[in-house]
């Protein structure tokens, strides 16, 4: 909201100056009569940058797919890959069809608490103040796909593909868009006396995925054998740590579109946001590794990767408002939190194979709250400098941020919970025991994710790593 106003303002300056330039250049060369037709380079640069950032965010889909595949068993590897592929494909279409219009479209319902629209408003426009509809949709679609795909990890190895496919349509068509309208869409949370702040979506994107994942994991129940009869957690190691680490590194790279791109223009703050994102992620990885090391006696690879991601998620909201040193602190705290959060959900017997709830839900919520402590700059949401408690900003921002995360938690858990229960009551949400034991690849998709020549015993039909010729 403010952000849009702000952009409008800057635009006017730019376009103004262009006009001025033209006036003068006209004199200089008659050939320039229609110079005003050529859009200002800064306008193109803004749009191009946000688009490139969107591409980086879409690349995160590969990162999620790898992390989730690596942390689950090989008999379900094709299924988890398929879920990541299709929740993006279906999610983007759903978001284009109605989601985007609900989130950012004009026609308001229930006094701005809800909206409605059809397809992407103004998608054919080639002139705009600020971002083109196509640029803005592209970037937002990438975010929507991210929110949707977070859930697949927590529900891995036991969810019916058909049911998951339907879920992913609804979350991007309805649930996530309503969150958008309330926030980045300029809705009530943006219109508060002390407006909310969530620069790049710790809560709006990540916690939406994280809390939906929480409901999914609860309603599904744990995987067979995940907890012993006497209730002790029993590890089910993931089948590929290289997938986990490469996936995490891809997500890390994608985050340099996710956060800096959320500046929504190409200006001098983009690079600072990137640096804060970088340092927060690295701090998260180091702290998570050391914490887990001291607790479990050995440095766990997948927890270090979770720590990197938790640091990145935590800094996603405050990155525009805090100083660089604070970003390090926030990222480190994210890395610390994720270790205890994973242990906590284990205790509750909520089976989240990849740690999605802890990384995206818990660390994301923490990051959103951290603004009320560390905010120093105006990130164009806060509307003021020094809003953080540590900078004398008082408690006002803390109340707003608290209300924001609580309302968001309730809205997402209730709607996503209802959605999963509805699917469970109709199509069913979980595969049969036999299917879960055999693996979802063969049962749900027809053939194993690591295929073999059907005419021969396994070992003869493929060169498994190490079996030679």
């Amino acid at each position, binding site marked *: 909201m403010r952000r849009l106003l702000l952009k409008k303002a800057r635009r006017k300056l730019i376009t103004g100056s262009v006009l001025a330039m033209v006036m003068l250049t006209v004199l200089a060369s008659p050939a320039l009569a229609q110079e005003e037709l050529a859009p200002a380079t800064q306008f193109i640069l803004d749009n191009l940058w946000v688009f490139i950032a969107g591409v980086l965010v879409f690349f995160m889909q590969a990162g999620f797919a790898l992390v989730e595949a690596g942390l689950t068993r090989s008999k379900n590897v094709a299924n988890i890959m398929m879920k990541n592929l299709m929740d993006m494909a279906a999610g983007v279409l759903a978001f284009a069809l109605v989601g985007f219009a609900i989130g950012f479209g004009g026609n308001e319902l229930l006094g701005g608490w809800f909206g409605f629209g059809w397809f992407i408003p103004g998608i054919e426009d080639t002139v705009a103040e600020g971002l083109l509809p196509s640029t803005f949709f592209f970037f937002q679609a990438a975010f929507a796909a991210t929110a949707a795909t977070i859930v697949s990890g927590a529900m891995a190895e036991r969810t019916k593909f058909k049911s998951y496919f339907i879920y992913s349509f609804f979350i991007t068509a309805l649930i996530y868009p309503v969150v958008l309208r309330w926030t980045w869409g300029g809705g009530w949370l943006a219109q508060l006396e002390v407006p909310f702040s969530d620069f790049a979506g710790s809560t709006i994107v990540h916690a939406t995925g994280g809390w939906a994942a929480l409901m999914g994991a609860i309603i599904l129940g744990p995987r067979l054998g995940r907890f012993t009869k006497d209730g002790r957690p029993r590890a089910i190691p993931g089948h590929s740590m290289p997938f986990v680490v490469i996936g995490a590194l891809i997500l890390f790279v994608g985050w340099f579109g996710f956060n800096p791109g959320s500046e929504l223009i190409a200006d001098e703050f983009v690079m600072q946001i990137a640096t804060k994102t970088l340092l927060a992620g690295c701090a998260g990885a180091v702290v998570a590794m050391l914490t887990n090391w001291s607790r479990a006696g050995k440095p766990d690879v997948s927890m270090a990767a979770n720590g990197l991601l938790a640091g990145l998620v935590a800094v996603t909201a405050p990155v525009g408002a805090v100083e660089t040193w604070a970003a390090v602190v926030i990222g480190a705290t994210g890395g610390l939190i994720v270790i205890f959060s994973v242990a906590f959900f284990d205790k509750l017997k909520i089976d989240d194979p990849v740690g999605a709830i802890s990384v995206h839900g818990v660390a994301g919520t923490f990051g959103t709250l951290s603004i009320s402590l560390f905010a120093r700059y105006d990130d164009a949401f806060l509307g003021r400098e020094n809003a953080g408690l540590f900078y004398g900003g008082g408690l006002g921002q803390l109340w707003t941020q608290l209300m924001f995360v609580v309302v968001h938690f309730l809205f997402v858990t209730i709607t996503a919970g209802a959605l999963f229960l509805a699917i469970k009551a109709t199509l069913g949400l979980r595969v049969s025991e036999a299917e879960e034991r055999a693996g979802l690849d063969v049962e749900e998709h027809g*053939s194993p994710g690591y295929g073999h020549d059907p005419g021969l015993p396994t070992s003869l039909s493929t060169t498994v790593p190490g079996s030679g010729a």
Partner: protein
Amino acid sequence: MKLIIAFIKPFKLQEVGDALKAVGVSGMSVSDISGFGRQAGQKEVYRGAEYEVDFVPKVRLEVLVPDDLVSPVVEAIEESARTGEIGDGKIAVVSLDNVVRIRTGERGADAV
């Protein structure tokens, strides 16, 4: 001294293991094999084309037992591995000339 060889359904392994412990056999050696028999391999479909997998994955057990434990062990495996459906598998009993425990050099019954 006998060697009892059994081909069973993989997911029955844990039950069989428990049943063996119950009759006092703590050790066994397990490998996985491809089974061909009456039970047909399952139909799979890949890129739109159906195909038949000729073999069925099975587990192979080897249990070294003193003579007096042969029938209890065979029965234990039989009961714990049975589903009643085709593909449950086979048990074979082989006589041994000798058994050695490498660590101690013990021979015969003590070696198991």
